[in-house]
């Protein structure tokens, strides 16, 4: 008797096999079908994964042997350190708090970014062009560099302008002379206008200068997000001293307990 391979119908039921459905493969699994250069996962990928995991494990051991995690005195609600800072990965929000309404800076802006602007990126930029290539092409690289410089310079500039205006008595002036006092225009109107205005300006600029397509201007805005994030984290970590005043990073006073 010859053995047949694969699952067999029960005796007497051979005729009951029937076509259930015809599934076009790419409706379930959207693979790109191309003849291409492939490598076996065992060993090529697994070796890389193993080595990387081991290197990082060793690195983590070394770092943990050299540096101790911080532990200060027992929590004391009556002793406020000056300044009190959030962990570094939230300092960009704490920095924004200094420049606009708290709810706008701490809740609305980050929520809009993380639950709306970031997730919709693939639904805005839907072409498949440039996938798998860093920055798409040389124009993409230029847009990236331009947006990075634009955002870094402007974010620093805005922080310094705000500090200068405040020390020139702008808040007092605003509460007496502006409609809505020191809240409406300084806390809402100006920050919202500046944030959206500069983003729109960036898009217009990359379209003008580099003839950016959709991928191009999405690239510009994402780069703006990344660099604004980094600059704000940097300023929050290394340039904010007691009273959340601005200091040069190399002159930062220690926290007053």
């Amino acid at each position, binding site marked *: 008797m010859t053995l047949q391979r694969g699952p067999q119908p029960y005796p007497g039921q051979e005729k009951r096999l029937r076509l259930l459905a015809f599934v076009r493969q790419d409706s379930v699994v959207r693979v790109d079908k191309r003849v291409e250069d492939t490598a076996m996962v065992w060993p090529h990928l697994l070796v890389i994964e193993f080595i990387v995991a081991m290197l990082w494990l060793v690195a983590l051991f070394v770092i943990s042997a050299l540096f101790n995690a911080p532990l200060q005195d027992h*929590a*004391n609600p009556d002793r406020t350190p000056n300044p*009190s800072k959030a962990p570094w990965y939230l300092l960009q929000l704490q920095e924004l708090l200094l420049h606009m309404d708290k709810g706008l800076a701490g809740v609305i802006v980050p929520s809009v970014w*993380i639950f709306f602007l970031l997730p919709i990126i693939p639904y805005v930029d839907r072409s498949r062009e440039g996938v798998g290539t860093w920055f798409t092409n040389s124009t993409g690289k230029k847009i990236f560099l331009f947006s990075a410089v634009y955002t870094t310079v402007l974010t620093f500039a805005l922080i310094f302008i705000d500090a200068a205006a405040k020390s020139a008595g702008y808040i007092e002036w605003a509460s007496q002379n502006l409609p809505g006092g020191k809240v409406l225009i300084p806390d809402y109107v100006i920050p919202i206008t500046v944030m959206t205005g500069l983003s729109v300006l960036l898009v217009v600029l990359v379209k003008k200068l580099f003839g950016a397509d959709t991928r191009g201007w999405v690239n510009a805005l994402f780069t703006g997000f990344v660099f604004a994030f980094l600059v704000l984290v940097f300023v929050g970590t290394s340039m904010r001293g007691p009273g959340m005043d601005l200091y040069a990073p190399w002159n930062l006073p220690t926290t007053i307990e």
Partner: protein
Amino acid sequence: MLEIPAQIWEKVRRNYIWRSLFRHGYPDSRKNQSLAVFTNVFLHLHPVKVRRHALAIPYTWCMGGLSFFLFLVLTLTGTLLMFYYRPTTEWAYSDIKDMETVVVFGQLLRNMHRWAAHGMVITVFLHMVRVFYTGSYKPPREFNWVVGTLLFFLTIMLSYTGYLLPWDQLAFWAVTVGYNIAAATPVIGNEVAFLLFGGFELGPNALLRFYVLHVVGLPLITAFLIAIHFWRIRKDGGISGPL
């Protein structure tokens, strides 16, 4: 001499128990290499073959894999830390102190958990950056990018909830900043603050809530989303690459 280890190896491989574990020979042929991957529950997250350029470190920076690696390290060290830590305002701080002074390797354990947590925020951020600039979110990977943004949010929340647990000055005042932000939510500020912190000041309720979120709630959701993330990578045709 040298035949002896070879003979032992041969014996082990023919052994009934060994063969009940592994249903393929040593992965030195294509067939056995494929079987090694897809008969193993852990390895079969991978396809049997990948496109060559997906192996390139300049392409992925290994950042997704490293984020996952750090997630595993954090789960392991975190579970060990749980043996010594009680989430109450009476005990939390002294338990951490004991960890550093009394528990064998306690300090090392705590350091590893701490630095891996900071590291994961960095690797996840860099992973997002590499996925964006290589255009890897483009069709058919739209949805996996969305899953990714949620993972980014969860990673930050995991780190942040953990930050309170030592109940020292650093933790207390850093989380106070967060409390003030939550309370400033327009319209429902008080409700949000109460929900997250269990009261209108940072006290025992906040500590317990953050603890439960940190060790159960958020890790479960994260693990769940990572599973979806990895499944989708396979279903979207593997790591992206030039058309």
